[in-house]
């Protein structure tokens, strides 16, 4: 999870990395209560980079200008993101700007220190001068000094910059970070250092053991993300979600019970030059004996969602699971084909279709079109394991059963290509 600038700076303050006096503003009218003397910099608090060029950073000399500028910033979306917070900060005169970062390198399996003597907004010169030092043993201050020297620093700056790197490393280690960055680290005419902007990414797998982060006053967006990451770890008994890949022109939808099976199924379609409309992941807990009812509800929930995908001709269900689940799928799909969801769901109206889906793709029409009932229902291709086929199979024109995945995909492709 990425922290915003003001949250990163709060962590900087905790370990003694110098930051300017600043204040957060959630409402442009509150700017009258600003404690920082003018001139002030107002900064849009969004995750995406390039906010300076986009107009999300403004210098203001008095309250009237500040109110107007704050209004503008709140109404300015940067790569689709509106700020919930503006950071008002004192102005700082820099002579030079450095770039410092620590990143976890997954190939080397250790943290790496990065630095450039040309920090700031000019990414090209920053990257051309980027230096790196691999921390392959326990961290010690000499690693930081080595980076400072590689960056071409001399004199007192070697020591003062490496002190800052050491403090960044402390945060990196203690807070389980994926990335910590100061850009720019401003240097004034007296050689004093100031972290003018910063970025921090927390490791998602370690979020739950970093309670101190709750003190950072998360934005609504971050709270949602945080909840999603944390609850994702608790294995619900049955749950489903859309995967991020979809195509508006697709005529086949995939339902799978593992991410890898969705990958394989999608590949098989693409290898035959068919792009699916989307893929849904429907997962179960490993060994619960009585999950069938909730499995059925979830499957119907998915089918109801798929009704709103326009132009769908077939739904391929590829589920490698227990016999009981296989049977449940066959029964649910065949009663769905006979009656539709409405009658099956009648008694469960509230429990199902009112849920909000966080990552619903835009191909799902929020409102069902009124003529949806007249559109031909998609046909089903079920891929279940051989010994899971129930004896009395309600075979029909609308449901096809296979035990081999490739044969199932071929059938679905034939349906897509038929008229």
């Amino acid at each position, binding site marked *: 999870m990425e922290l915003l600038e003001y949250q990163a700076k709060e962590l900087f303050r905790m370990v003694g990395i110098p930051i300017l006096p600043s204040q957060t503003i959630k409402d442009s009218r509150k700017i009258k209560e600003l404690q920082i003397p003018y001139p002030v910099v107002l900064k849009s608090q969004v995750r995406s*980079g390039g906010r300076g060029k986009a107009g999300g950073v403004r210098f203001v000399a008095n309250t009237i200008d500040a109110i107007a500028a704050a209004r503008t910033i709140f109404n300015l979306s940067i790569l689709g993101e509106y700020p919930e917070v503006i950071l008002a900060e004192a102005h700082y005169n820099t002579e030079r700007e450095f770039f410092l970062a620590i990143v976890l*390198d997954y190939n080397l399996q250790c943290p790496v220190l990065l630095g450039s003597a040309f920090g700031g907004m000019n990414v090209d010169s920053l*990257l051309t001068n980027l230096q*790196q030092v691999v921390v392959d043993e326990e961290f010690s201050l000499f690693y930081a000094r080595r980076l400072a020297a590689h960056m071409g620093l001399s004199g007192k700056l070697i020591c003062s910059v490496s002190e800052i790197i050491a403090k960044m490393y402390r945060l990196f280690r203690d807070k389980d970070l*994926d990335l910590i960055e100061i850009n720019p680290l401003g240097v004034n005419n007296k050689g004093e250092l100031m972290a003018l902007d910063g970025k921090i990414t927390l490791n998602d797998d370690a979020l739950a053991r970093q309670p101190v982060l709750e003190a950072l006053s998360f934005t609504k967006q971050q709270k949602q993300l945080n909840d999603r990451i944390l609850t994702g770890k608790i294995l619900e008994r049955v749950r489903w979600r859309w995967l991020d890949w979809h195509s508006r022109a697709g005529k086949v939808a995939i339902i799978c019970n*593992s991410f890898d099976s*969705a990958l*394989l199924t*999608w590949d098989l379609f693409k290898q035959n030059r068919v792009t699916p409309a989307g893929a849904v992941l429907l997962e179960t807990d490993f060994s619960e004996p009585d999950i069938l009812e909730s499995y059925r509800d979830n499957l119907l929930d998915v089918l109801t969602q798929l009704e709103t995908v326009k132009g769908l001709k077939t739904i391929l269900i590829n589920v490698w699971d227990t016999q009981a689940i296989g049977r449940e799928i066959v029964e649910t799909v065949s009663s769905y084909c006979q009656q539709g969801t409405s009658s099956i769901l009648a008694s469960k109206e509230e429990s199902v279709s009112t849920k909000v889906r966080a990552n619903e793709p835009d191909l799902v029409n929020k409102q069902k079109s009124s003529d949806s009932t007249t559109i031909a229902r998609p046909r089903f291709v079920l891929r279940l394991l051989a010994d899971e086929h129930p004896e009395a199979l309600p075979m029909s024109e609308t449901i096809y059963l296979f035990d081999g995945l490739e044969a199932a995909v071929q059938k679905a492709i034939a349906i897509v290509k038929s008229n």
Partner: protein
Amino acid sequence: MNWTSQDKVIVQGITEPQAAFYAQQMKAGSTDIVAGVSPGNGGTEVGDIPVFDLVEQVLTQVDKIDISLIFVDSYQVLDAAREAIAAGIRHIIIFTPEVPPLDTIEIIKYAKASDTLILGPGSHGIVIPQQVCLSKLQSQAYQSGTIGTITTSQYLSYEVATELNQADLGHSIVVSLGNDRIIGSNLPQWLEILDRDPDTKAIVSIGQRITETEEIVTYCQERDYDKPIIVYLAGLKVPQEQIFRDAQTIITNHLSASIPAVNRDRQTIDRLKKAGIKIAKKPSDIPRLIQKAWSK
């Protein structure tokens, strides 16, 4: 390879629901689970497995422990692995997924210093059909044979097994590496282990992506074996977000999303092909590629 059904096995985190379930499944597959460890639950039993508070207490009851299976919560994995290493256990399988990477790095350091083999985090274990079941996998899905499979995916290994079974090619071993971004033993290491294994006549690697391409290419150029290696990667046609692994690329991408990211999958596959590795486009290609390589 030195995995046998005589190995003495303990389960750390035996009171976790998953552990209790799979411990019974493994015992049914004739794995000799001598004890479970769960701090605070010493003196109790899970199924008929005696539970101890500490690994070293188990050693007062048995002569030695060969293997530890770790199921503890992800934040306790580092501690559990260190405890196992300290007790002299040299084979550790970490089933718990999503361990904080800084912890895994620490585990790898201790493992290297003590010459311990770590599988995982997030491993599904090891199966040698009809002999060894140290695994969450359904061991009955794999027939006995001569193909060594290294996988990062439980499901894909079943799909491949179905194809191999149909072609009457069974498995000498199935090894699940785990899906975390940093793992203990990796693909190049296991290629080497399976090359040395006399029961393995061909090696199949299954997964989503290969991250140690250069290491594998170097290994293939220097190896003394002519066992065919087949790689199957799933999701190459899926419009997925790229995952960056090295510091420079992570920072470059982070600073400037406008610098186009190069999709390296194609490149990886070309490099592997040049090194003599066969690439399967789908699971059903695998038996054909193996037989073709053998008949040469």
